[in-house]
C-alpha cells in the first residue's frame, strides 16, 4: 500500500508544477491592465502608474512567476487587486459556500443514485428498470440551470417557501444557511444523481454476470444478500470514480447555478476576477482548484485501493 501511495504522490506533485506553469502563461497572455481598469475613464496616467506600483505589477514574468509560486508554497496566495484582501481569505469565505453546497449535492445525489441504481439492476428489463432508465435519461437531458429556474419559480416566487437566492452566512445560523443551499443543491444533484444511478446500474449488472455471484447464489445466499454483500462492493469502483469527478465538478463548476441563485461561491469569485482583471485571484483560485481536483483524484485512487485489495497488490 505504501509504495502505491508514494507513486500516486509523485504524480500529484508533477501535475501541480505543470498546472502552475500553464495557468501562469495563460494569465500572462490575457490583455488588459488591472490598474487602468480599476481607475476608469477619467484617470490621469500618473494615477494609473501610482496604482500599478501599489499593486506590485512590475517585474519580469519569470520574477513574477517565482514570486507567485514561492508565495503559494508559504501559504501566501497574494492580495486581490480589487478587493485588496488576501486571496486566501477570499477563497476561505467562498469555500464556506461552495464546499457545503458541493457536499450537499453530492450526498443528495449519492443517496438517491445508489439505491435507485441497485433497484434498477435488480429489476433488469422489467417496468421498474425502464422507468428508472427513462427518468434518469430525462435528468441528464434537463440543463441544471433550467431546472434551477423552475425550482425558483415554484418554491420561491409562487410558494415563497425559499428565497430566490443569496446566502446569509454561517454566522447567521446553520439552519438559514442550509435552507439557502437547499434549492441549489437539489438543482445540482439532479443530473449528477441521474448519471450516477445509470453507472451504478450497469456496474451492478456487470458484477451480477460474474461466476462468483452464481456461486454465492448456488451456496444458498438469498438474492438480497448476494446483491448487498457481493455485488454492491464490487460495483463501487466505477461509482467512486464518477463521484470523485463529480465532486471536482461541483466545487468549480457550480458557477452557473451560483449565478442563478446569486450565491457567493468560488465559481463567482473566479468569474468576477476575470471580468475585473483581478488576475492574481484568477491565478491563485484556478491553481487551488487544480490542486483540489488532483487531490480528489489522489484520494479516489487511495479509495480504490481500499475497496479493491487487488489494486494495491498490483502496484
Amino acid at each position, binding site marked *: 500500500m505504501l509504495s502505491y501511495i508514494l507513486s500516486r504522490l509523485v504524480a500529484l506533485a508533477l501535475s501541480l508544477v505543470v498546472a502552475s506553469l500553464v495557468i501562469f502563461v495563460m494569465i500572462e497572455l490575457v*490583455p488588459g491592465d488591472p490598474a487602468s481598469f480599476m481607475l476608469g475613464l*477619467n*484617470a490621469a496616467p500618473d494615477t494609473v502608474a501610482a496604482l500599478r506600483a501599489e499593486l506590485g505589477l512590475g517585474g519580469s514574468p519569470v520574477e513574477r512567476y517565482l514570486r507567485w509560486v514561492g508565495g503559494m508554497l508559504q501559504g501566501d496566495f497574494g492580495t486581490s487587486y480589487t478587493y485588496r484582501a488576501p486571496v486566501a481569505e477570499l477563497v476561505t469565505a467562498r469555500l464556506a459556500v461552495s464546499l457545503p453546497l458541493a457536499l450537499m449535492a453530492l450526498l443528495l445525489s449519492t443517496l438517491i443514485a445508489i439505491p435507485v441504481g441497485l433497484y434498477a439492476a435488480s429489476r433488469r428489463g422489467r417496468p421498474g428498470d425502464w422507468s428508472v432508465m427513462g427518468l434518469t435519461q430525462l435528468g441528464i437531458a434537463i440543463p441544471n440551470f433550467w431546472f434551477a429556474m423552475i425550482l425558483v419559480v415554484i418554491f420561491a416566487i409562487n410558494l415563497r417557501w425559499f*428565497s430566490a437566492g443569496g446566502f446569509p452566512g454561517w454566522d447567521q445560523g446553520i439552519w438559514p444557511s442550509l435552507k439557502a443551499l437547499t434549492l441549489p443543491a437539489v438543482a445540482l444533484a439532479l443530473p449528477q444523481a441521474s448519471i450516477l444511478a445509470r453507472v451504478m446500474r450497469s456496474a451492478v449488472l456487470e458484477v451480477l454476470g460474474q461466476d462468483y455471484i452464481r456461486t454465492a447464489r448456488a451456496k444458498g445466499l438469498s438474492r438480497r444478500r448476494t446483491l448487498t454483500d457481493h455485488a454492491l462492493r464490487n460495483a463501487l469502483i466505477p461509482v467512486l470514480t464518477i463521484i470523485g469527478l463529480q465532486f471536482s465538478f461541483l466545487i468549480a463548476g457550480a458557477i452557473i447555478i451560483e449565478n442563478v*441563485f446569486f450565491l457567493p*461561491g468560488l465559481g463567482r469569485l473566479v468569474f468576477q476576477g476575470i471580468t475585473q482583471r483581478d488576475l492574481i485571484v484568477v491565478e491563485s483560485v484556478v491553481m487551488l482548484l487544480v490542486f483540489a481536483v488532483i487531490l480528489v483524484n489522489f484520494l479516489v485512487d487511495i479509495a480504490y485501493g481500499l475497496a479493491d485489495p487487488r489494486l494495491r497488490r498490483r502496484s
Partner: protein
Amino acid sequence: MKQLFSGPALATFAAAAVMNVSAVLAAQTSITVGMQLEPPNLDPTGGAAAAIDEVVYANVFEGLTRYQADGSVAPALAKSWTISDDGLVYTFSLHSGVKFHDGSAMDAEDVKFSLDRARAEDSTNAQKRLFTGIASVDAVDALTVKITLSNPDGGFITNLAWGDAVIVAPESIENAKTAPVGTGPFTFSRWVQGDRVELARNPDYWGDAVALEKATFKFISDPTAAFAAMMAGDIDAFPGYPAPETLPQFEADPRFRVIVGSTEGETILSTNNKAENLSDVRVRQAIAHAIDRQAIIDGAMFGYGTPIGTHFAPHHPDYVDLTGGSAHDPAKARALLKEAGAENLTLSLKLPPPSYARRGGEIIAAQLREVGIGTEIENLEWAQWLEQVFRGKDFDLTIVSHTEPMDIGIYANPDYYFQYDSAAFQGLIEDLKLATAPADRTRILQAAQKQIAGDYVNGYLFQLARTGVANARINGLWENAPTQANDLTGVSWSD
C-alpha cells in the same frame, strides 16, 4: 426520487412559511436594495467603480457639498461658504458636532487631510482632475476651511459634491476599503463579499435621522435572477434593474412600481477624429445622418432613453436640443459620402460589454450599411476596450455611455480617445472655468454644445435611462441619477 426527500422537505417548507410571515411583519424599517455589480471595495476615494458610490454615497460618506435627487448641489458637511471676488478663495464653515462613525470629531483638519490626500502626487483617486486646481487647503480654525485655487473654477462647488471628494479621517482611511468610516446617517455593519453589504442607522448622526434602521445592498448580476428575487420579495428595490424586457410585467402588478429616470450617461457613437476618412467632417456628418436614434432606443433599450444631439444631459436646464442637426436622412448621408469621396468605406466598430453597445452596435451597423458604410464589429471585454480603444486609440467607431455628470470638458482634451482637437472649443472651456455668473455659464455651455454638434465630433445617440423596480410601498427613492448613488436618506415605507 420524489419520495426519498418528501418527509424532511415538508418540515422544511412548513418552517420556512412561518419564518416568512415574521419577516414581513418586521420589514418596515429595513430595506434590501438590489445592485447588479458588487463594489470592488468601499472607499469612494480609491476607485472608479460606480458600485462603490452606489453603496456609500450620502449613506456612509459625505462631502462638503452633495448632489440632490434633482441634480442640484446642496450644502452637506459645509454649512455655508463664501467666494472671494477674484473667484480664487473659498471659505467653508463646517457644521459643528459632526462625528465620524468611530466617534472622533470631524473638523477642518479632516477636510484638509481628505483634499490634500486626493490631490497628492501618489494619489490613486480616480477623479484626481477634480482637485488639480487646488493650490492650498488651510484649516483656519476647527470649523473653518479656506481653499485657494490656482485659477478660478466656476464648477468647483460641484466638483466637491462628487463621491470621490468625500471627507474621510486619517485614523480610519487605512481600512476604508473593507470597513468604511464616514460621517453619514448610516454606519457600515458588514460586508459578506460576493453577497451583500449591510448598513445600520447611525444613532449619533449630526443631521436629521433617517427613517430606515437597516439597509442591505444585495448583489445579483444575472438578469433572470434579479427578476426572480424581485418577484420572490427578496429584494425591495432594484434601482438599476438589469432586465428591462420584464418591466411591463412589473408595471401590471400593483405590488410594484416601475421607476424610469434619466442618468448622466450620454451614450454616443464615439468616433476616432484622427482616423483615416473620419478626420473629414463630411464623413462624420454622413454617419450622423445615417443614424436613426429612435430605432436604436426601441431596438436596443426597449424604448427607454431620450434622444440627444450633443454631449449634454437633456434634463439639465442649459441643455439645447440639437437633434435636428443630425436628423435621420440616409439620402443626405449618401450625398455627403459621395462629396467626400468616401464611398465603399469599411470601419471598425468595437463594442464594450453593456447591452446598449452590443445590441445598439448591431442596429447601427445595419443603419450604416444602408448608406454604404460597411462595419467590422468586434466585441471587447472592458479591460480590452480600455487598452485598445481608450488608451490605444486603435478604433474607428465604438459605442459607450459617458456617465460622469457635466463631462463636456473632455472635448477640450485633444488626447482624449476620440481625439477632437478644436481651438474654438478649447477656448470655450477656458472661458467656462473663469465664469462664475450663472448667465455666463449658461451661454458658454450652450455654445459648447453647439460647437461639438456642428463639428459632428461623435454620433450622439441617447441619454441612458435608469429603469428601476421597487415595492410600491417604498417612498423617497431617487428617480433620476444625477450621480451614481442609491441615496437612502429620504427613503421610508408607507403602510
